């Protein structure tokens, strides 16, 4: 928890700077963004070596942000857990927090359809912050991809059947 509160404190410090960078948007951050970075959902890590866990790690070179999003699937192919860790601006944290909420309970195919525009709309991100929602979408896709690769490398067995039935 100490880790979280430090993260939250740092975020709060960053808000004024961020707002001034959003020159055109006098309103600053939307309440949905503030809610997600003041109370980020699902912060943390899952065991990346677990076969049922997919890890997506993406970065935004323009601002030096890094985002890790992990999903855990049950044997029915449903996402039962999701965690994230994002080091970046408030919009990037809010986008990944929301993404973890949205993927939970979804199948892989359903999770694949989550669009950055939906994330941006939910958080009312200003145009200069749209790339943060894109990063979250990329992170979901990367996590799904990682899971698929891991399952593909699984020795023949129950998982293999599931994969075959999808193809």
């Amino acid at each position, binding site marked *: 928890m100490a*880790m979280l509160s*430090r*993260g939250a*404190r*740092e975020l709060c*410090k960053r808000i004024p700077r961020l707002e001034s960078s959003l020159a055109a948007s006098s309103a600053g951050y939307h309440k949905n963004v503030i809610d997600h970075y003041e109370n980020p959902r699902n912060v943390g890590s899952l065991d990346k070596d677990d076969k049922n866990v997919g890890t997506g*790690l*993406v*970065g*935004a*070179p*323009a*601002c*030096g*942000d*890094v985002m*890790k999003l992990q999903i855990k699937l049950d044997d029915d192919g449903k996402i039962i857990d999701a965690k994230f*860790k994002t*080091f970046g601006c408030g919009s990037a944290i809010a986008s990944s927090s929301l993404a973890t909420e949205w993927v939970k309970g979804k199948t892989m195919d359903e999770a694949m359809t989550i669009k950055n525009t939906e994330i941006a709309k939910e958080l009312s991100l200003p145009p200069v912050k*749209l*790339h943060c929602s*894109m990063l979250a979408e*990329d992170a979901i896709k990367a996590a799904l991809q990682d899971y698929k690769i891991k399952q593909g490398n699984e020795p023949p067995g129950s998982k293999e059947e599931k994969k075959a039935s999808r193809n």
Partner: protein
Amino acid sequence: MFPSVSRSCWKCGRDTNPEKELFFCKCGIVQTVAPSVTYFDLLREDISFDLDTKTLGVVFRETQKHLHPDMFSSKSKEEQRLAEEQSSLLNKAYQTLLKPLSRAIYMLNLHDLTIDEKDTISDPEFLMDIMSFNEQIDEASSASDITNIEETIGVAIHKCIKEISQAFKDCNIEEAKRSTIKLRYFTTIQERILDIRRRELG
């Protein structure tokens, strides 16, 4: 390095040589900003990533002295305005060239390259390192933990700077961009550490 475009003095009308009369005409009158002049030109440096920031500082302060508002208090409004314009551009040039990251980004811009939102990074190992450094900062329980990370980041930054320098020397601009992106990441972590230190002091 200097544009061949000449610029006539708005006061006496003679053609000024942008290289020798960057800020002032020989007649002593402050000039408009020379066309297509680079930040390097303004600070009398060759376009190179490797520059001596001490020399840069000396040239900067010396030039600013001549453009200082005090020197223009008895001059015309137009001269005051031009001096202000030149001085503010010179500030921007100095701040940009002083730090390796902004200097590298500026040099990429001179090569028509930018680092923007459309850029992605697909180096999982590198991203893993960045994630891990950030997690180490989160989990650091003592000042000496932070100092250790700071030192590691310092070494990484030094390495990036060397890579950028070599890439620009080799005219390998894509490679310079890749190393600049890395420098951006390490600099972000360095700023985060500085932020933590500042808060602990305050």
